[in-house]
């Protein structure tokens, strides 16, 4: 068995939905197309389709679960759509490294903001805001700020009171500040009422 090639093939089958389906439709040929020799291809074609799907799904849900934990408010605001969008997002992005879950969450927030056009704009901004907080632990900056179009604080309060947020546009400045040498941030959300 060429273990290097087999592991490379398995890694793709575990993480790539379309390739996995192609493999399940025609295992031996797909394995050959992926660079396996005929013997290894034949052997790998004996993988249980049920167990392969179950394992791949478990990887997906584990990954999504980590991001849900990191972006709890976004998850709460998107409800079932979180899963739908995450599935779409995961097709084109695989995180790596020791901070992969954090990077995944930041990339997902960016994806929501740029590509999830069918969700409300406030919901997309909420994801960006929540992801911005992830940068705080990593940056050497002393000040971070971002302008939002919606009152982030009101949205947060509504979600945590289990109410449906119905925010009107209200320009909001989010600022994080810290004293040099300290790790704790001061945070302010300043909303400007509509005139």
């Amino acid at each position, binding site marked *: 068995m060429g273990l290097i090639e*087999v592991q490379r093939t398995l890694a793709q089958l575990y993480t790539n939905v379309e390739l996995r389906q192609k493999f399940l439709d025609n295992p031996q040929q797909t394995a050959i197309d992926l660079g396996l020799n005929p013997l290894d291809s034949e052997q790998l074609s004996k993988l249980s389709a049920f167990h392969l799907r179950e394992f791949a799904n478990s990887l997906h849900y584990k990954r999504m679960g980590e991001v849900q934990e990191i972006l709890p408010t976004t998850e709460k605001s998107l409800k079932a759509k979180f899963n739908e969008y995450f599935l779409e997002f995961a097709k084109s992005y695989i995180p790596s490294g020791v901070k992969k879950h954090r990077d995944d969450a930041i990339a997902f927030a960016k994806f929501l903001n740029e590509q999830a056009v069918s969700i409300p704009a406030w919901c997309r901004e909420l994801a960006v805001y929540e992801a911005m907080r992830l940068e705080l632990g990593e940056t050497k900056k002393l000040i971070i700020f971002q302008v939002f179009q919606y009152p982030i604080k009101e949205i947060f309060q509504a979600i945590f009171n289990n109410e449906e947020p119905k925010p009107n546009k209200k320009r909001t400045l989010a600022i994080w500040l810290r004293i040099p040498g300290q790790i704790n941030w001061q945070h302010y959300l300043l909303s400007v009422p509509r005139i």
Partner: protein
Amino acid sequence: MNSKANNINNLPFLGVGIGYRQQFTSELFLNQDKVDFLEIISDHYIDASAYKENELALLKEHFTLVPHGINLSLGSAEGLSKDYLKKLANLINNLNPPWWSEHISFTQAGGIDIGHLSPLPFTQEAIEVVVQNIEQIREYITIPLILENITYMLEIPGSEMNEAEFLSEILERTDCGLLLDITNLYINSVNHHYSIDKFLSQIPLDKVVQLHFVGGHWQHGLLIDSHAYPTHKEVWELMQTVVEHTNLKGAILERDENFPQFNELVQELTQARKIIDSKTKKAQEVLSWV
């Protein structure tokens, strides 16, 4: 193989502890006297933020820490990431724990981070890969390494031996200790229909250093290692059996999700401690008869 690096016979007894998770930090410190040691996930403190560094320093001040790796990819035929290994070595060497642990699995291949522990085929080739990778690790980390058995939903075709034989040869060749995850063992025995007794009779029980225990859940006819439920009755029974036949140095409750009140976790630690202490008591009784 560098034998100095893995003298598992003289490891200290650490007792019963818990895998540290940020969610229960406050309760952990309130119940410090009920937790003998902590297992920390190495990855959480590699390239760490100042906040995580402070957290680690605080934990170290109050507990014995044992690092637990999840992403070294010991079974990668492509070899280990030198960059990751150096960072891991830096963390472990600075902590200077009695031992540290990793899984017999691969997590990366062809530039893809699979995101979880993936099974190896039970072949001679895979054994050679693990042995070589551990030799490389020992150039950087001489603190004893213990290896954990994983759960696997799917079996990689082409296996030349069973799981117990595969693990045993790796332990034999590397002289590493075994972190026997008894929940994983129970789950694999259920999902792959094998006998736990036969498994235990085939592995070198004298190499068992530490246990993991927790509960999983059923999904689509498979028992899943979700680390999200109280320890199964069968796993407690298995712990009793394993404790009687090993010279155990520690056991860790590995709860990751669906956290209950901390006192429920403490109850599980107490139950594990009772099982482990029962062996000591039995030994004392035998000694008193002599």
